[in-house]
């Protein structure tokens, strides 16, 4: 019985620790490594190797500058092009193979609406 409990206990702890998707930090220091880098900066897409469309999102600081300078992100604006791409509305969906979870897009939106701070 003790061995069964040792296996089940971590899952119980995990389940009891469930949080709302927007309880996560809506900051670039979280959004980049948690969502943008693993989903977009892959070697075949926006990593340094492929650099699709000339866009590299691997490094947090470089990615931030690029998104702001090229106006993929407009601080405070729900009409930021990045959001259209992540939702596949009026533009080709990004990532193209499968959408991001809506909860992740909502967190990116919250960061942008909150001023898109670095």
């Amino acid at each position: 019985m003790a061995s069964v409990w040792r296996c089940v206990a971590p899952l119980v702890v995990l389940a009891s620790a469930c949080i709302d998707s927007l309880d996560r930090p809506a900051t670039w220091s979280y959004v980049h490594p948690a969502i943008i880098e693993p989903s977009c900066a892959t070697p075949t897409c926006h990593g340094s190797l492929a650099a699709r469309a000339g866009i590299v999102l691997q490094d947090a600081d470089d990615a931030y500058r690029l998104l702001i300078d090229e106006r993929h992100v407009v601080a405070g604006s729900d009409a930021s092009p990045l959001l259209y791409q992540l939702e596949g509305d009026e533009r080709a969906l990004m990532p193209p193979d499968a959408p991001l979870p809506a909860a992740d897009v909502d967190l990116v939106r919250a960061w942008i609406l909150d001023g898109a701070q670095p």
Partner: protein
Amino acid sequence: MKAPVVVVVVVAVLVLAPAVAVAYPQYQFASDTATCGECHQTPAGGGLLTEWGRGELGDTLSMGGDGRLLHAIDEPEWLAVGGGLRLAALVNDTGSADGAETAVFPMQAELAARLASGALSITAIAGARSAARDTAAPDDDAGGFGGLAFFSREHFVGYHDEASAWWLRAGRFTAPFGLRLADHTAYVRRHTGYGVYEETYGVGASRLVEARDLHLTAFISDVLQVGAAPEAGVAGMLEQRWAATAVVASTRITAGAAKARVLTDVAVKHWLAGPRLLWMAELAGGWEVLRAAGEGRPQLVGYAGPTWFPARGVNVGIAAELFAEDARVVATNRYAGSLSASIMPVAHVELIVTSRYQRVGTDDHALATMLQLHYLP
């Protein structure tokens, strides 16, 4: 034909039509072979085939034919040559405003070679890399493919001491971990650090004995060829086999300036000889630290499903997958179900059809169907 012309033709065929022999973990047990290293020239599978592996290619894995190099050539002990050509056609529906994406593209064209002298060997796999989508276009229109460019997935020096059963490797190679599925889109590859071009540079030691494989690797990310974020790590994998069952336990720890992650993984394979079914399941759980944010998150990645071998040269598989990028946030979970069929009408030629449905979060989905033609010289 004069000798130099023959050499040029052979090299041209190998460069233009050669293939990657990737690992096919479903063939363990199903091909009357218990270990990956019996069929492959590497301790953990994948890549060039051994003489035994080439025999299996013609005998048990395909409907027939000669599994030797270019269907006829016996390789000398000091040289192994191979590679692969993979052509693919894809239809992917993500619900995007653009509609379903379609593409026909050369997925892979590689040459692989291994030179050996006694216990020492040098192995390299190199060729053209491609992509399903245009890498240069400002917008990702459907169709077309990325420009071909030279790329070497693996290149390493190996030392294999048969008496002690130890293998040592140094260079760029896949650090053994988990099931090592051929499909790079599978969550247990894509989200565990084994996506496309994510092989690492490192040193590895492996020991292969009758019922047990042990692999230990220390590695750094490929900052030169891929330009990956600098990371260092270690991976360990232990496979224990019984008559028709293998249990694989793995751990992978990586650390870089932006992130650190610990993943622990258990995988099981079980072969049912009567119905000719190979069951495979893998579950990896871990913790990822996002340094700049001062945050951490638990992650889960899973795979489970059977592969049925109804006849020689044919297999059909179904699988269910899970990826929880933050296991506390259920709304970010991804689930997938896939159905695939593989037919190898003759040794060296494989046709694969795969259909995969992904449920992303609570509202989104993607349905991709891909046809692949794979030729191994």
